[in-house]
């Protein structure tokens, strides 16, 4: 296994720029998820790394070797395709052995590798069968077995679970994560399913319109989105964003939402000072908002519009002026639609965003500029 480096990659289809100056480093044995809405260029980037469509500009390095202009077979990568691409005219064994045979692997090594891969994916009983009549889940296993048997420097996966039904997807997700963790494979995994990304990746690269917006651990991507897009794309429900105006109140810089004044934490003061007199977005996750059934200090009284019981929690929809807020509570929390509750926004959990650029206002960034 080896590290993968993409430097300033650009890929155009005619006038359409599918990848726009993307740089990404995937460390050895790391599992990076490319996440983004459809059409954001994540599959194009993966294919550029695989060699199925070369970049127009920039470089791709795998294991320190410049593979930018090499054919797929010369790159020593293996891949799991969205529709599996299992060869229907070959037995399961021949499918898994395909790459090894092309490499002229000695018979005994090949036999052993195929059997190991098949055992890891629990398909060792099907090796003599043809994939024609097999279910999606079984084909999926063959595709993964073929990819890991090949023993390449990097494993590329293009939405491998998207064609499975929900229950099977959940099962395969955990199994794949455990398997790839054990193999220590350098993996790039493309998905549009943010839950899949959060649950599987060591790091997530969030993409939008051909660019990588944020590369971070799942927790950081979830808790500290770099901009409005990442916050509203990741998480179910997505992060709440409310319009707030930054102003001096009681002699201190505060953010006003409706009738509520929120005091920013000290480390934010310097960064927020340029926004005095302007509107910003404040973002907060549904589960980070505290819901009280009675008035409390600094709590904002609001009316509950909708109550959605989701089993593990109740999801409340609340309107603050023209901001729609989703807030989660314990299922036992007493509330009905139309009832009143009080909201508390813990300052440390609030994300501050520039309203024009949508980018997060962070103390570090301000220090860099200053």
């Amino acid at each position, binding site marked *: 296994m080896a590290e993968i480096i993409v430097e300033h990659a650009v890929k155009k289809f005619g006038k359409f720029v599918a990848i726009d100056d993307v740089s990404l480093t995937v460390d050895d044995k790391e599992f990076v998820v490319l996440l983004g809405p459809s059409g954001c260029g994540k599959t194009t980037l993966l294919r550029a790394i695989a*060699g199925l469509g070369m970049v127009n500009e920039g470089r791709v390095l795998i294991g320190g070797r410049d593979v930018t202009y090499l054919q*797929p077979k010369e790159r020593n990568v293996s891949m799991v395709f969205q529709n599996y691409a299992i060869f229907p005219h070959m037995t399961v064994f021949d499918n898994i052995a395909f790459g090894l045979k092309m490499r002229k692997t000695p018979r005994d090594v090949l036999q052993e590798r195929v059997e190991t891969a098949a055992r890891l994916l629990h398909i060792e009983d099907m090796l003599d069968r043809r994939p024609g009549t097999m279910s999606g889940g079984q084909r999926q296993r063959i595709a993964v077995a073929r990819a890991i048997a090949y023993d390449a420097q990097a494993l590329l996966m293009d939405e491998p679970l998207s064609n499975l039904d929900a229950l099977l997807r959940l099962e395969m997700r955990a199994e794949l994560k455990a398997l790839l963790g054990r193999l220590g494979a350098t993996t790039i995994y493309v998905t549009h399913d943010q839950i899949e990304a959060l649950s599987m990746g060591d790091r997530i690269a969030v993409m939008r319109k051909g660019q990588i917006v944020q590369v971070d651990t799942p927790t950081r991507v979830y808790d500290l989105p770099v901009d409005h897009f990442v916050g509203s794309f990741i998480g179910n429900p997505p992060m709440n964003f409310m319009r707030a105006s930054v102003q001096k109140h009681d002699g201190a810089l505060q953010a006003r939402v409706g009738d509520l004044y929120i005091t920013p934490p000290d480390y934010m003061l310097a960064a927020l000072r340029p926004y005095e007199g302007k509107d910003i977005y404040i973002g907060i996750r549904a589960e980070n908002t505290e819901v009280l059934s009675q008035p409390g200090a600094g709590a904002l009284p609001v009316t509950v519009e909708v109550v959605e019981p989701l089993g593990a929690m109740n999801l409340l929809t609340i309107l603050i002026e023209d901001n729609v807020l989703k807030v989660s509570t314990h299922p036992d929390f007493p509330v009905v639609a139309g009832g009143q509750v009080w909201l508390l926004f813990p300052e440390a959990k609030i994300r501050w965003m520039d309203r024009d650029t949508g980018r997060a206002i962070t103390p570090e960034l301000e220090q860099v500029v200053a």
Partner: protein
Amino acid sequence: MTEATVRSEVGSPAPMTQAVQAARRRAKMRHTLRRASVYAVAIAIALWILVPIWLIFTMAFSTPQDVRSFPKPFYPSPFSTDTIEFFLNTEGVLRSTLNSFIVAIIALLLSTAIAMPAGYAIARFVFRGRDTIRLGILSVRAFPVVVLAVPLAVVFIRLGMFDQTYSLALMHTALTLPTTILVIASVFMGLPYEFEEAAQVFGCTRLQAFWRVVLPLAVPGIAAAAVLTFVLSWNEVFAAILLTITNRTLPAQILYNLDKSGDPYKFAGGFFMLVPSLIFIFFIRRYLFSMWGQLNK
């Protein structure tokens, strides 16, 4: 609840049910009629095709006396191969059958060899003028060959290719190529490109991916296209008459002798024209079905 409403509730179902039943009867009637007319049309079409075939079979296996008699028998009685033997022993028949085979095989090989890369290109590559080429190929089919008759004959004579088996094979290749290309292109289109990409990632060049993955999966469809070429060439008569005199193919030979010979010759000739096509179509039936989209299921 008043008595009146109770009565109306109790009373209303009966006429309602009658109306519903009547409507249901009418719907059923319509349904039956529609099915009956579909079957009637289907049977008519089947008979229109099958009756002549049956007649040809019956005649081909009856004695020459029976063939000449009127009314003709409905089935071969007594069963006899005399008519066939008479036909085969007629001057020129064996030779023209052999010519037909040679021409059809050459046309089949040539047109498959050309149509395979052409079809692959149309199916896989986006190139400038692809749709124009596709349309062009299709419109060639619509072009009447008769218009080309004289120029063609002239060109073939000038090139010294007149009255040759191979020149007729070339002509047949040209005639069948449009169909073959489009059929083979549709076969390749039915195969997901992902197969080739997977093969390339796992160590194949483009060419190897084609040989190891695409071709094995496309063989049924390509075979069907090849057989189609064979049948088209076997049955083709216009170019055969136009371009050959001594090296006639079977249909040209039969057509040439048609007005000079009796019923036994005609029926036996018809039988020989018919049989190869029927056998081939019987074997490629399921490939022709699978060609239109079921291949990758």
